[in-house]
């Protein structure tokens, strides 16, 4: 009865080092995105919207904020009597414990968890990407191909292909060649890091991979190439839609800006496939007399007294009188004082930009960043002397 045909294992251990001061105490999946969400909301919501109700979330780097955020899974409807969401940190045995060696090792260490649910299929995903996908369609393709594993792929610009695992496929989508971050890519079909496995195949592959002392225990580097060499039925599943790895300051900023297009390719307003997140319980946003807001995404609990243009404001942000916020992302609780300028910038959670300050500039190549909780002190005397 009520078997878990397919369960998901969500790799959420990413450190996100290239996000710098924004991930000081934060695992990458917990990084804020889109005015309301954290990155992991997208994959968790994808699971729920695809009918997958058992999700193991594998954490390791800075899990405190992430654990607290995930709670018992209720915002995503994953607080279930059976199944639901389970957080799986590396396990400490009597002789000690270590971090997961690689993506495949992380799943290997949790074979016991998976077996509790006796699934036919296991979906491996990562909490680092922004996209909306119906995993149920991936599963249908996997079944109709009688595949051992199916990898979701997306065409990327040829110039970037060498940053990904790329594959060549035949006319039926079966993978004939796979190369992890090749210097000379022969295909621009990139792996999205979304794998659907038939569980007996995966189980066996993980055990073999673990026994191989030469292996880096990574899906892209070891498990997939080995399966391919052994002639397993590996298929690609072509994804159409928005997909973005937000691993750098620039890509995080860009992905936020992408949402501001009048016809954004990532639709947050689709009520059939909502993105769920923890509700911060704030009142409706207040736009004061004299304020102006254009081409922006603004969340509840914000107070806007200044001018906001092409920007994303998370909950509880305040923008004071006479200030201008443009082409910027203001994380939860960020405060911009009076007569300040925030241009092409990301202002971290709870950070304060003092009265009269300027952060970033229109002609700057780089995105300016104010770290979470940091304060840019008032600059009024300076500005009075030399107004910009």
């Amino acid at each position, binding site marked *: 009865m009520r078997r878990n045909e397919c369960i998901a294992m969500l790799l959420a251990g990413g450190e996100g080092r290239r996000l710098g001061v924004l991930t000081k105490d934060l695992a990458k999946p917990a990084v804020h995105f889109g*005015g309301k969400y954290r990155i992991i909301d997208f994959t968790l919501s994808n699971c729920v919207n695809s009918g997958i109700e058992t999700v193991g979330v594998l954490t390791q780097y800075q899990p405190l904020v992430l654990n607290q955020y995930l709670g018992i899974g209720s915002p995503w409807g994953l607080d279930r009597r059976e199944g639901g969401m389970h957080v799986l940190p590396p396990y400490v045995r009597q002789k000690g414990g270590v971090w997961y060696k690689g993506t495949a090792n992380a799943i290997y260490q949790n074979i016991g968890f998976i077996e509790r649910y006796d699934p036919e299929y296991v979906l491996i995903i990562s909490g680092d990407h922004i996209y909306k996908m119906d995993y149920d369609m991936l599963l249908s393709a996997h079944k109709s191909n009688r595949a051992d594993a199916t990898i979701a792929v997306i065409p990327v610009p040829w110039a970037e292909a060498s940053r990904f695992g790329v594959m060549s496929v035949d006319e039926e989508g079966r993978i004939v060649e796979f190369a992890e971050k090749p210097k000379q890519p022969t295909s621009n079909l990139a792996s999205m890091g979304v794998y659907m496995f038939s569980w007996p195949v995966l189980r066996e592959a993980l055990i073999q991979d673990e026994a191989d002392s030469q292996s880096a225990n990574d899906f892209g580097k070891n498990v997939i190439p080995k399966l391919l060499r052994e002639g397993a039925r590996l298929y690609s599943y072509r994804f159409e839609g928005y997909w973005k790895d937000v691993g750098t300051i620039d890509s995080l900023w860009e992905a936020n800006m992408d949402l501001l297009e009048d016809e954004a390719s990532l639709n947050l307003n689709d009520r059939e496939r909502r993105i769920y997140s923890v509700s911060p*319980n704030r009142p409706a946003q207040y736009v004061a007399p004299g304020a102006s807001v254009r081409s922006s995404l603004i969340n509840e609990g914000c107070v806007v007294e200044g001018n906001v243009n092409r920007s994303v404001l998370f909950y509880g942000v305040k923008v004071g009188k006479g200030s201008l916020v443009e082409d910027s992302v203001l994380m939860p609780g960020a405060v911009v004082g009076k007569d300040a300028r925030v241009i092409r910038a990301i202002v971290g959670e709870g950070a304060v930009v003092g009265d009269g300050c300027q952060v970033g500039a229109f002609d700057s190549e780089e995105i300016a960043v104010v770290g979470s909780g940091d304060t840019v002190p008032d600059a009024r005397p300076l500005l009075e002397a030399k107004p910009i």
Partner: protein
Amino acid sequence: MKLPMMGVINLIHETEQMGTLTAGRCLATVPFGGRYRLIDFVLSSMVNSGIAKVAVFAHTKFRSLMDHLGSGGNWDLHRKQSGLFVLPPAMEDMTEFGKGDLYQFYRHRDYFVRSPLEYVVIARSHMVCNLDFARVLAEHRDRNLDVTVVCKSWPLARTGLARKVKTDADGRIVEMQDHFGRLASDVVSMEMYLLRKELLIDLVETTLAQGKDHFVRDAIMSRLGELNVGACMHDGFLGVVNTIPAFYRHNMELLDPDVWNELFFRPGPIYTKVKDEPPTRYRSGSAVVNSLVANGCEIEGTVEGSILFRGVKVRKGAAVRGSIVMQNGVIGENGALENCILDKEVEIRPQQQLRGTADVPYLAVKRNVI
């Protein structure tokens, strides 16, 4: 901290003149403030004060209430031992509907008797405020009162219907009249009555036995002589939302940042049903000032001095002024609203112009296309 007190939100025969706003819903679930329902304010106040057990005595049209409250999880009342109870009226005998609230109190007396909590506070759903009942209980105990009535000194012109109260120098209530009475007083009752559970049960049974069945009129107002009934004054914001002009006015008062900062945050946050709407999208043509906007809206036009609930769309060239637009309303291209209240899911056709006044706003019924 837990208070030794249970809460009752009494929806039986709530006084209201809300027209079509209460056609398909009870007063408790009338939308308010962009994302709330009226009942959220008193319910959140109770929870924030440390009341862990709240009963809602439902009466009529409570399907929206059940949908809104669910199991109480959004108010952290989804508990093992106590929590939120929606008690529908006894349905077997239709004649009971007309009877006063004491009759239903009596039918629900198990709810009181079975609990070990010592005090009860009985409130209504339509008093919009943010209140610490722990303070009221402390005052009740300090002043050694039999019944404490939360009151507000309110000399302003009143648009809502509220009972008037006269107190003596010690704060004891010496007279109390229904809203239509002639008593000249600046003090109104917020219809929150705090008393010992034993006294409540005694009042219910005695008053019913005397052939009377109205809690406030028969059990409290007629006993001001025998009982020590005191007023506990509320200093914060109050909206008495039971008429259409009051609904309009108190919504508009939220555009004052002081009110916004107080009502929604102090002493505690106001909780409501989570809706998972994305942040509001301001498009290139948007011009929004002096307005409250909930999540999930898409704005391409002009919004001034207005309140937009979740998921409202203001199309290109449309203008919304001095208006309240409830959930999923759509203002078509170049449409114009002034002093309007649109109930949920109303669609305004392109070019359409509607205009009311602040005293008598234009009121559009739910799911209409105009």
